[in-house]
């Protein structure tokens, strides 16, 4: 289980500060797939980073009762100057995974072929997303944090995600953040909408979507 209680996050600004998250509460059970809808700059990525532990909260608490992935996002997590394979080795080392057994899994899922020996900075965003997903599946997390990137994959990648994640790993929890409702409608059991620092939680995706349409 993941539980956020009264989480507050502020950032310093040129004048004063901005409150990005204002007493946010969220609970995600094992195997649940939760979507977070919100406009650009509403604090979705901040929320994901707080859940992952990459950033710390100013107030409130985050309880992590599962093995949670790093945020699978457009930036971060990889060292651009290193090859895909060196990044794989680094990530295996920090999560305590056997490198030799991870390599074939990542090769199979990412389909990067010879590009695994090239620096990650030369990858397209779709290729990075594939490497990120492949690695997080190799580490075997209980919960994936997905920040928009699902949308950049091509149809083959989507097919793969469907079989590997949504069929084979039903227990895998997920928090998907997006400004595009389609991704969330397709994959999530329920959804919440982030607006003006508040998180509005809904029991199903339709209600969240209706509320979101009113906000946009």
């Amino acid at each position: 289980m993941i539980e956020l209680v009264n989480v507050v996050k502020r950032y310093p600004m040129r004048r004063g500060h901005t409150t990005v998250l204002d007493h946010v509460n969220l609970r995600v059970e094992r195997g649940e797939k939760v979507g977070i809808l919100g406009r650009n700059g509403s604090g979705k990525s901040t929320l994901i980073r707080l859940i992952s532990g990459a950033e710390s909260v100013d107030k409130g608490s985050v309880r992590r009762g599962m093995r949670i992935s790093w945020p699978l996002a457009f930036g971060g997590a990889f060292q651009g100057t290193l090859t895909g394979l060196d990044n794989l080795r680094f990530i295996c080392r920090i999560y305590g995974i056997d490198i030799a057994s991870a390599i074939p899994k990542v090769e199979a899922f990412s389909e990067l072929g010879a590009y695994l020996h090239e620096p990650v900075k030369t990858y397209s965003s779709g290729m990075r997303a594939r490497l990120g997903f492949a690695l997080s599946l190799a580490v075997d997390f209980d919960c994936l944090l997905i920040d928009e990137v699902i949308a950049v994959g091509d149809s083959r990648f989507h097919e793969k995600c469907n079989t590997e994640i949504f069929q084979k790993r039903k227990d895998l929890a997920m928090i998907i953040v997006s400004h595009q409702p389609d991704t969330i409608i397709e994959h999530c059991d329920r959804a919440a909408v982030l607006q003006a620092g508040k998180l509005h939680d809904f029991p199903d995706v339709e209600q969240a979507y209706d509320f979101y349409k009113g906000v946009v």
Partner: protein
Amino acid sequence: MHATSLSRSLVLQGRVIGALLMREVITRYGRHNIGFFWLFVEPMLFTLGVTALWSLVQHSSGARLPIVAFAVTGYSSVLLWRNMPNRLVGAVGPNLALMYHRNVKVMDMYIARLALEAVGATISFIGLSSAFVVMGWMQPPQDLATVLLGWFMLTWFGAALAIFVGAISERTDLVEKIWAPITYLMFPLSGAAYMVDWLPPAGQKAALYLPMVHGVEILREGYFGSAVRAHYDLGYMATVCLALTVLGLAQERYISRRLAPE
């Protein structure tokens, strides 16, 4: 329960620091030409150059101490207090992407970089001294334990200063700008190129305010034994190092809590 969670976090931190060390070696030295060996070949080249220059200059100024040993002990000490802070100034930025992984903390990255720097300087120091001793350009040290004490104190000072300067450099760009002139000016004052005993009394008193001077004096007492009159206060240097360590860790904690990865 507490014991297991502590040992588990130690294992975890060890794993992360190990991974960061490997990554640092690859990004810094690559797999081309001599690769990893640059870790100590680079400081060796610096020390060799300075030793050669000082040997030339000394021929015209008259000898007070064997110049090769004087230069090796002096310049190697500079490597410790100057290069460790240099490696940590602005070190968070290029490593921000790695902090997406919750287990990778600023301190882990600092420890990995400091360990590499210290190992490089130490191998360079031992390697050059051994080579010069074998070639007969340098006598073996009089008292190895004192040499080790001096080296340890200089390493501690370098590491504590590095964490402090590195952490405050993340708070204001000013640090990065003024750190370079400070190290440049500190080099002639640091005790690398003189012994405190050679200074007039007022100069001695002033020089001994600088913590690294004590370290170099200890190092040289170990090396030259009774051939030199070393001036130092181990208690003073330890106090300064301890204070810098506490201040540095506090600053590191401050910046870690406010870290925002990209």
